[in-house]
């Protein structure tokens, strides 16, 4: 575990894997809840956890660098079921990459228990891990200019659900009507880091999913990892 200083009051704690990042995040959230850590934001990501708004970043950096990465993340209590119609336009491409018949994609995906590794890209967007590495798929070579809200996609080792209509390069395998983000709801985000997620296949016509939401702004260069 390596703690890199970020500006004057933040630390970026680096670990070796997704799973370690999730475990470290859970441990830091626990410490904060127990009053052992004073920090404004705890932001998990792929291989890091960012701690922003620390009084004494240097002291915490020493402390963290000397401590062990927690082994595995605790099993979250919260489980969210997401009903999905497996009708995405990239279903056959994903099936080909997985080396399975098209109608087995739903079974593999829905048979996996996922965990929200981290959020980002848009309010309510969770990067979900759980699929074995052999099911990793690349992003589409050419991103779509518009992906409808509720689209269920895959990229790299992640699964995600677009909370609103936006441009996107993930491989789309299905659609859900569930609302991932509703700021009038408490909590607004259906998914937060650590939430367990199961996809439940449903039949039915593929219609436009959920509210169209707010379009993403133009002109923001998307890093390679973004949906």
């Amino acid at each position, binding site marked *: 575990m390596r703690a890199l200083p970020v*500006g*004057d009051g933040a630390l970026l704690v680096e670990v070796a894997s997704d799973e370690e990042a999730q475990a470290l995040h859970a441990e830091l959230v626990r410490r904060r809840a127990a009053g052992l850590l004073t920090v404004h934001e705890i*932001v998990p990501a792929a291989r890091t*956890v960012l701690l922003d708004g620390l009084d004494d970043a240097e002291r915490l950096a020493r402390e963290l660098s000397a401590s062990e990465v927690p082994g595995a993340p605790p099993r979250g209590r919260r489980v969210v079921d997401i009903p999905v119609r497996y009708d995405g336009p990239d279903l056959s491409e994903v099936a080909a990459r997985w080396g399975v018949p098209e109608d087995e994609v739903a079974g593999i995906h829905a048979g996996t228990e996922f965990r929200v590794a981290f*959020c980002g890209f*848009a*309010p309510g967007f969770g990067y979900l891990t759980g699929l074995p590495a052999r099911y990793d798929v690349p992003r589409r070579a050419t991103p779509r200019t518009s992906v409808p809200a509720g689209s269920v996609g895959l990229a790299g080792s992640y699964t995600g659900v677009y909370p609103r209509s936006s441009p996107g390069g993930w491989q789309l395998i299905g659609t859900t009507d569930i609302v991932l983000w509703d700021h009038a709801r408490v909590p607004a985000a259906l998914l937060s880091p650590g939430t367990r997620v199961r996809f439940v296949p449903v039949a039915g016509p593929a219609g436009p999913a959920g509210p169209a939401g707010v379009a*993403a702004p133009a002109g923001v260069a998307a*890093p390679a990892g973004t949906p």
Partner: protein
Amino acid sequence: MTDRALAVVRAGALTTVQDQGRPGHAHLGVPRSGALDASAAALANRLVGNRPDAAVLETTLDGCTLRSRSEVTVAVAGAPCPVTLDGRPVAWGAPVRMPAGALLDLGTAVSGVRSYLGVSGGIIVEPVLGSRSTDLLSGLGPPPLTDGAVLPLGTPQALLHARVDVAPQPAPPAELVLRVTLGPRDDWFTPDAVRAFTSRTYRVSSASNRIGLRTEGPALERALTGELPSEGMVLGAVQVPPDGRPLVFLADHPTTGGYPVIAVVRAADLPAAAQAVPGTPVRFVVVRRR
């Protein structure tokens, strides 16, 4: 509709409602948002007797025009601009009494980019996650002002507004000097690139917005060419996208990103960054971590 309200007569190029933003939700992908020149917004509130967390208007270059339905106290801070009430010039940077029905115009900024209009009672559009700020990255909060929109106002606090003729404010920068601490990903760049970053002069790009201050200047060459997994981003992070030109993250920045951050700008220098017009020279000066 309450009779305490402002009617938008001319929205201007981009006028948004801003307060201190919605920090604390970055782990859900929610940007902090809030006034880009936080000190000017705080001054506008102080001048009209509001609490520091009251919502103000943030204009972009060409001001806006408003009509009040009730008598209010207003003050303009940030980028200096001509201010008129029913066509007559009134003070900038000082409290002004605005009678019911009067027309207030904030003209084009003489220097700087963003002017802030504080109104006694504050703007009380519906908050989202505890903030009334417009977030242009994720679309949270009220939409940018449009002609004909009506903004509800709160009841003025019992606070007295500041009694000043004009409040001194820092002039918008002729040259933007941004103090930075290097890292966390300066090791992703060649030593020459780090030297160029800290010694050459960049210029503010016209592609800058509330998400980031973009620059034009020497491209920074990477030492590591791999892909950086997405990681958490802080306010003031200097991210270097593939074009090699440093980009300083401002209030509406994304909460995670996959381009390496070469350095982080001191928070105290970000108000000046919010006021730097395109073409302004920018220098990044390395300081010791506190």
